[in-house]
């Protein structure tokens, strides 16, 4: 009996001894209780399976000049279109070819080779029955909405007049685009300057009506790819490797997407201690990822420290996309009078009522968050422990793609004067306007995206 009591007593003492340090560790909390928005998986790029590819060739008569040789000029249209067929077959399980003008008609596989021949664009019927008199791009976009898993490739000169970019015609162009972007798809626009030997129709005249021009030796054509970003990038990589290794002025690329954010920096643990320069020099510095992949910088500091969280655009922006014009930073700050983590109770943390603590700026090649710029460290009471969190969101997409294609743009009102200059290189009518429309549709579909969650956990010292 005595031995039993002795054993129980020994067991109680032992368990008390073993659990007491554990309790003291778990009792204290070096972080307040809070919840941050998390990056949702659905925002991420889905793994793409091989799905059908639909290729649409603009069959309008203006395209004929791309397939005729122009002495002294390099014809890229034929080369690119030839390879495009190969690339399409690599990207998808099956490829379906179509021709579009005033309507869409499918092309048999044995007729595909004709796309690079002038006869493909010739119509021997009466003009009213011909399918080569106009470019109804909206029909191709509408078709792109049919199979949500497919990849759509549209080859066109993108020569759209003002009347096609207003009212109901514009609506019929933007409505399917919205639907495409809403489904998480992106639109890649490849512009290629190629030799041209033909007539450009439907150039708007100042007095009304249209005029034509036949002296152009070069002219850009466009490949619009609608699909998953991964497929677009695959096509881009193929085209660049085969035709545009030097990325000369003959080639331009823009990605229209409702999600120009490449990745969440927390999810992929991209954030390191170097994202805040010189912070690692601070006393008791420690960088860690806590629960929910929150990047936490722990350190002691005085009020003299300046801190800037920098992220390269290449880490957060989808290459070739319109980028991000505006960011939003949600901030929170807590203070605790008790600075020893082991002794801090949850009730010691008090959430500050400060609206703006840090401010962000776009430095061209990087995003910078000036930490404690608006509410400086100087305004904090020393001798306290502070816990600061910043959730950085991409809030508004940019318009970089408009700048990319600016050189090849021809305004409706300037078209006749431009033609009067007898240009060798003919530009694309309303190109920037089209890019603006695409970007505005993407902006409408854009939802603020969480880029990163960052936290600072620091003791503010007097010296």
């Amino acid at each position, binding site marked *: 009996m005595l031995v039993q009591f002795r054993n129980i007593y020994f067991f109680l003492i032992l368990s008390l001894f073993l659990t007491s340090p554990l309790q003291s560790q778990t009792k204290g909390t070096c972080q307040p209780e809070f919840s941050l928005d998390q990056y949702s998986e659905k925002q991420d790029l889905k793994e793409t399976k091989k799905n059908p590819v639909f290729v649409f060739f603009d069959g309008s008569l203006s395209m004929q000049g791309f397939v005729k040789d122009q002495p002294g000029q390099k014809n890229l249209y034929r080369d690119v279109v030839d390879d495009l067929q190969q690339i399409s077959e690599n990207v998808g399980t099956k490829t379906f070819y179509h021709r579009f003008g005033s309507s869409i008609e499918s092309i048999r596989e044995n007729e595909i080779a004709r796309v690079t021949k002038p006869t493909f664009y010739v119509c021997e019927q009466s003009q009213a029955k011909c399918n080569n008199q106009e470019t109804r791009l909206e029909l191709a976009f509408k078709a792109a909405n049919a199979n949500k898993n497919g990849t759509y490739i549209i080859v066109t000169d993108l020569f759209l007049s003002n009347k096609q970019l207003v009212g109901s015609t514009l609506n019929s162009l933007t409505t399917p685009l919205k639907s495409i972007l809403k489904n998480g798809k992106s639109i890649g626009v490849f512009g290629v300057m190629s030799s041209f030997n033909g007539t450009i129709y439907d150039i708007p005249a100042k007095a009304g009506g249209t005029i034509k021009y036949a002296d152009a030796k070069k002219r850009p054509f466009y490949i619009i790819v609608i699909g998953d970003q991964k497929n677009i990038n695959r096509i881009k990589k193929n085209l660049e490797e085969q035709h545009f290794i030097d990325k000369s002025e003959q080639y331009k690329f823009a990605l229209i997407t409702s999600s120009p954010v490449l990745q969440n920096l927390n999810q992929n643990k991209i954030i390191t201690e170097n994202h805040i320069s010189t912070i690692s020099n601070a006393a008791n510095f420690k960088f860690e990822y806590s629960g929910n992949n929150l990047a936490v910088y722990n350190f002691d500091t005085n009020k003299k420290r300046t801190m800037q969280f920098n992220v390269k655009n290449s880490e957060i922006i989808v290459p070739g996309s319109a980028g991000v014009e505006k960011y939003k930073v949600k901030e929170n*700050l807590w*203070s605790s*009078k008790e600075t020893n983590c082991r002794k801090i109770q949850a009730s010691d943390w*008090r959430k500050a009522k*400060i609206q703006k603590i840090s401010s962000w700026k776009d430095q061209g090649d990087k995003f910078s968050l000036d930490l404690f710029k608006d509410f400086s460290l100087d*305004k*904090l*009471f020393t001798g306290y422990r502070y816990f600061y969190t910043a959730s950085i969101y991409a809030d508004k997409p940019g318009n970089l793609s408009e700048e990319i294609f600016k050189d090849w743009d021809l305004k409706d009102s300037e078209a006749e004067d431009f033609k009067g200059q007898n240009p060798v290189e003919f530009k694309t009518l309303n190109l920037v306007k089209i890019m603006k429309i695409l970007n505005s549709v993407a902006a409408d579909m854009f939802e603020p995206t969480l880029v990163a969650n960052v936290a600072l956990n620091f003791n503010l010292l007097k010296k």
Partner: protein
Amino acid sequence: MINIFRSLGYASVAMGSLGWLSFLLIGNLLKGPNADSSLAQYFADSIIFEERREELNRTFTDVSGELFLLIAHMNIALLAAAILMALSWSALSHFLNIDAPGKAKIYFIHWTVFTGALGAILFSITWYFTQSSDAISTEGVWKLTLFGIVFYTLIYYLGVVFGTARFARSSVLFANKLPGGF
């Protein structure tokens, strides 16, 4: 020597007439903040960075606890400086070389410099203490500095007026107005 001790006694009693207020203040400050007291109210209204405290969502007790202790220590230092300087002058005044009528007035310059030194010491003390806390508002810093210098200079002045040797009273401002038998 008896005269020196008598001088020190007079100076102490004179300083005590105002000094008790300082003791009372220091006692209250050492007790810590009491939300209902007028002192706490004054601190909240005039000394503490109230806007910053509210922004950081800290309670008045959080911020004022250390501050009360700090101001108490500041007052102790100020009181000690004022007493020490007043007693020093009172004792030293007996050793001034005043061997002819009117010569005491020459020592007014010495007294002015001595008092100026006290002013500088008081200013340094208040500056050191007020700058070592970031809970004191700018307005609070100036109020505490002004209060520290004026109040403790006044205590010192009472000490030197009554403590200066009778033959040297002309060296202290208005000290010669005291009754001759005092």
